[in-house]
């Protein structure tokens, strides 16, 4: 038997193709007769459209068609993107139309679609579409958008409040009445995006002979694309197939369904040609959803020993102009705040503001980095005011592992009461501090200060709901060749599902992962699916692979027992063959697979159903909760404001690990995104909500020199609520990063009493704070 695959640190099966240029991303498809599309988008954040003239564009060489609202089939002219996750707290659930011809509400909103023989000609013609706009004032900053005299995001609304709700538990007034110390502060986290290096892309082809529409999309969620295409366009579900081929990064924004994913199939069918649209980077800045803008006005109450008594406050969340995913992000924020601490009383009122910007939907971390920022800053403030070490105040409040499972008193976004299923938060903090050499830090700091260098250390903890339901299924099939194939619905945008799902199945058949294929993200290969987001694939699809592979193994044993005339309990599976233990008698999985294909007129061996395969749709009872501790050591130059991350340490508990190598990569990449959120990434808008940082020259992504190596220590607290004990691992690195980095910068600049209440912080902001403090 081969080495155990589950849990092994093995290299990825995906890599050789991707390293040699043999990947197939959506823009790599070249279909015969294919046309290319370009969009005409609003150049204004808010405007009334008086008229659209497409005559010159239509006359441009190479142009095949130009679509405005008036050119769409009548039933689609006022059709909006389906509202994905309704909630009674939402009062104004504005959704985007396929194209707009009355009022555009963000810069980048599509108005017309040009289809031509080449992208070059399509773009030329797009510039010839003449639109008569009346420019309207835009609602920009989300807090000011809720003021009485603010410009309206949607001209016919009477206010910009999209939703309002309060979450909490316990007696907050009592907590504050009995507090030894309270602290109130406002925090601000600004907007950024996912910025996968591959932009969005859609290719659609209608096959008239088969009456079949195939859509290739750079999406995380092919089944959501299919569902929305079917719902919006009214096509039969079995006539639509959506495939997520290789996807060049996702990070949340590619989870969401976009109007382009309906329009491209629609025009492909209408024109009788395959049509391709590939978003360019400018469009990506304008029209791909973003996240993070929130203000938190928060107050903490503690006793004399630093024990938490209560937290209360108000949060304002920027939703952008539309709410395709309702209040998912701000709701996750609100329920993430208590984190790993025993917090006896909590109350947060959230107001969601409509602004004239592209919609806000989850980006890696999904509302959590903001909440962790607010909570961890409050912990730092309480510690500082009480004269307790920032590490010590956390230690005193962490939920002890004996109290697991721990019911928080809140309802999570899955509608289930929030119960932390497992975890050892104190151990996680201890381990992070150990690898960070926290013991030696104050001596390092003193030595550095003697050399006029300013180093500081920051810490942040978090808990994250992962493995969101309702399900992600898997079919495991042994093919007549003996090769094992796994089919699952979520797309792969770099997570390495081929490798990790193969690791889940391999041990059941005593084979190596190279004997297993994984076909993912294709609605033609499995009946149902959801998608790759919310750190959910290992939990949902992984568990389904486990259940399906177990069933296939049992079936193989049953059929083999019949074929070998042996008792099932005397059989084992070794190297892809069913063997009779202690005897020189065996049958290969290939022969068993062929035997259960059936022969006309003959019974199937052992009376089983045909096919050596099984499908399962694992549905978790609730989310499972990953957690971690980040400890960051920085050096700050008070003259230039430059922050150098000297050491980034992270203890990470995502339950049982399928492949530590892959999880390390997930944590490292997620941390880099958190570093961007803390120090670099800042989507800037003017007072009318027109974007002013719409290129990588103005919006800075972390590059190699300023991104730290991350020392990761894995704590494995198995989740009791799925058969593998796994939890999600894709987002944890991002979540505590801004909080921990700001804490470290403050510590480094403590001689100047620098206080940081927002993210990102740029060098010039740091210099200003140092000057104000000296």
């Amino acid at each position, binding site marked *: 038997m081969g080495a155990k695959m589950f849990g092994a640190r093995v290299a*990825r099966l995906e*890599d050789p193709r991707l390293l040699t240029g043999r990947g*197939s991303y959506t*823009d790599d498809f070249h279909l015969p007769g294919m046309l290319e599309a370009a969009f005409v988008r609003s150049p204004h954040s808010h405007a009334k459209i008086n008229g659209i003239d497409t005559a010159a564009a239509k006359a441009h060489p190479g142009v095949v068609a130009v679509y405005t609202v008036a050119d769409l089939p009548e039933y689609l002219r006022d059709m909006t993107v389906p509202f994905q996750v309704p909630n009674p707290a939402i009062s104004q659930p504005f959704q985007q139309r396929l194209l707009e011809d009355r009022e555009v509400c963000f810069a980048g909103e599509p108005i017309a679609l040009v289809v031509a023989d080449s992208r070059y000609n399509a773009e030329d013609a797009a510039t010839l579409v003449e639109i008569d706009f009346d420019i309207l004032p835009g609602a920009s900053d989300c807090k000011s958008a809720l003021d009485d005299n603010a410009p309206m995001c949607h001209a016919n609304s009477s206010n910009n409040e999209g939703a309002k709700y309060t979450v909490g538990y316990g007696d907050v007034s009592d907590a504050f009445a009995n507090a030894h110390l309270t602290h109130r502060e406002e925090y601000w986290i600004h907007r950024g995006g996912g910025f996968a290096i591959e932009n969005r892309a859609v290719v659609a082809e209608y096959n008239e002979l088969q009456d079949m529409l195939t859509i290739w999309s750079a999406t995380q969620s092919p089944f959501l694309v299919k569902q929305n295409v079917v719902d919006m366009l009214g096509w039969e579900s079995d006539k639509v197939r959506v495939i997520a081929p290789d996807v060049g990064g996702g990070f949340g924004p590619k989870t969401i369904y976009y109007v382009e994913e309906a329009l491209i199939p629609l025009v492909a069918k209408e024109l009788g040609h395959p049509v391709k649209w590939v978003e360019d980077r400018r469009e990506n800045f304008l029209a791909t959803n973003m996240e993070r803008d929130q203000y938190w006005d928060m107050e903490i109450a503690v006793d004399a020993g630093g024990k938490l008594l209560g937290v209360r406050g108000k949060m304002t969340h920027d939703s952008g102009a539309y709410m395709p995913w309702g209040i998912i992000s701000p709701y996750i924020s609100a329920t993430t705040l208590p984190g790993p601490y025993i917090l006896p009383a909590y109350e947060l009122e959230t107001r969601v503001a409509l602004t004239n910007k592209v919609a806000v939907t989850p980006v890696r971390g999904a509302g959590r980095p903001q909440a962790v920022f607010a909570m961890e800053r409050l912990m730092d403030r309480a510690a500082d005011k009480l004269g307790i070490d920032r590490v010590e105040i956390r230690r005193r409040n962490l939920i002890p592992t004996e109290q697991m499972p721990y019911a928080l008193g809140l309802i999570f976004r899955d509608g289930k009461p929030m119960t932390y299923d497992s975890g050892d938060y104190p151990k996680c903090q201890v381990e992070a501090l150990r690898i960070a050499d926290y013991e030696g830090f104050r001596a390092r700091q003193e030595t550095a200060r003697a050399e006029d260098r300013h180093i500081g250390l920051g810490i942040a903890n978090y808990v994250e709901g992962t493995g969101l339901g309702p399900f992600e299924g898997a079919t495991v099939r042994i093919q007549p060749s003996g090769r094992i194939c796994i089919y699952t619905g979520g797309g792969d945008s770099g997570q390495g599902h081929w490798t990790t799902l193969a690791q889940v199945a391999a041990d059941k058949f005593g084979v190596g992962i190279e004997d297993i294929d994984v076909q993912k993200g294709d609605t033609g290969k499995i009946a149902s699916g959801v998608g790759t987001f919310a750190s959910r694939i290992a939990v949902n699809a992984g568990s389904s692979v486990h259940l399906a592979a177990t069933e296939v193994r049992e079936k193989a044993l049953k059929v083999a027992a019949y074929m070998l005339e042996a008792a099932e309990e005397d059989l084992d599976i070794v190297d892809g063959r069913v063997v009779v233990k202690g005897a020189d008698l065996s049958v290969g999985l290939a022969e068993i697979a062929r035997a259960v294909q059936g022969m006309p007129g003959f019974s199937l061996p052992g009376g089983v159903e045909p096919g050596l395969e099984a499908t399962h749709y694992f549905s978790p009872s609730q989310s499972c909760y990953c957690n971690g501790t980040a400890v960051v050591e920085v050096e700050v130059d008070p003259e230039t404001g430059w922050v150098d991350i000297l050491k980034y340490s992270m203890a990470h508990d995502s339950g049982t690990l399928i492949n530590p190598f892959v999880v*390390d990569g997930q944590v490292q990449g997620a941390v880099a995104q958190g570093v961007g959120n803390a120090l670099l990434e800042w989507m800037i808008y003017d007072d009318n909500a027109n974007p002013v940082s719409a*290129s990588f020259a103005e919006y800075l992504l972390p590059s190699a020199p300023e991104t730290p190596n991350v020392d990761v220590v894995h704590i494995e607290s198995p989740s009791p609520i799925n058969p593998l004990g796994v939890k999600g691992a894709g987002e944890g690195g991002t979540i505590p990063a801004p909080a921990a980095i700001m804490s470290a910068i403050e510590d480094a600049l403590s001689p100047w009493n620098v206080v940081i209440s927002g993210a990102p912080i740029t060098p010039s902001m740091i210099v200003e704070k140092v000057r104000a403090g000296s």
Partner: protein
Amino acid sequence: MSDRRTISVTINGEAYEREVETRLTLADFIRHEVLLTGTHVGCEHGVCGACTILLNGRTARSCLMLAVQANGQEIMTVEGIAPNDTELHPLQQAFQDNHGLQCGFCTPGMLTTLIEFLGDNPDPTEREVREAISGNLCRCTGYQGIVAAALDAAKRLKGKETAGA
């Protein structure tokens, strides 16, 4: 707009002659005319580095060049790095062994950039590797696996040289 020229370029050792629009970018020429789709386009303004190719052995951003500017020149793309269809180049192998890629989209530009860099600097420090790839954005890995792969590849390539000498 429709000014066209005939150009000849050698890509990965193979000669191509095509009539192209003068405004066609080199990246689009490689991807959509020659159909070598391993070279990727991530930003079209020269920042992300995904489209990096080797032009006469030196790195160039194929999104910022016109195809006609490559007339008569020699190009290497990611498809030309491996010695054959079944083996990986030591740099590619180091990427797999050090988890130097996740989604794979920035990878071709990382590889071409590092081929040039390791040729110029066969024994680099970590800092030098980080500077060398500072014009290539990766959103998945946090660069840690990429840097480890480059340092590992430097060792492997040196070992190969010594073995061959």
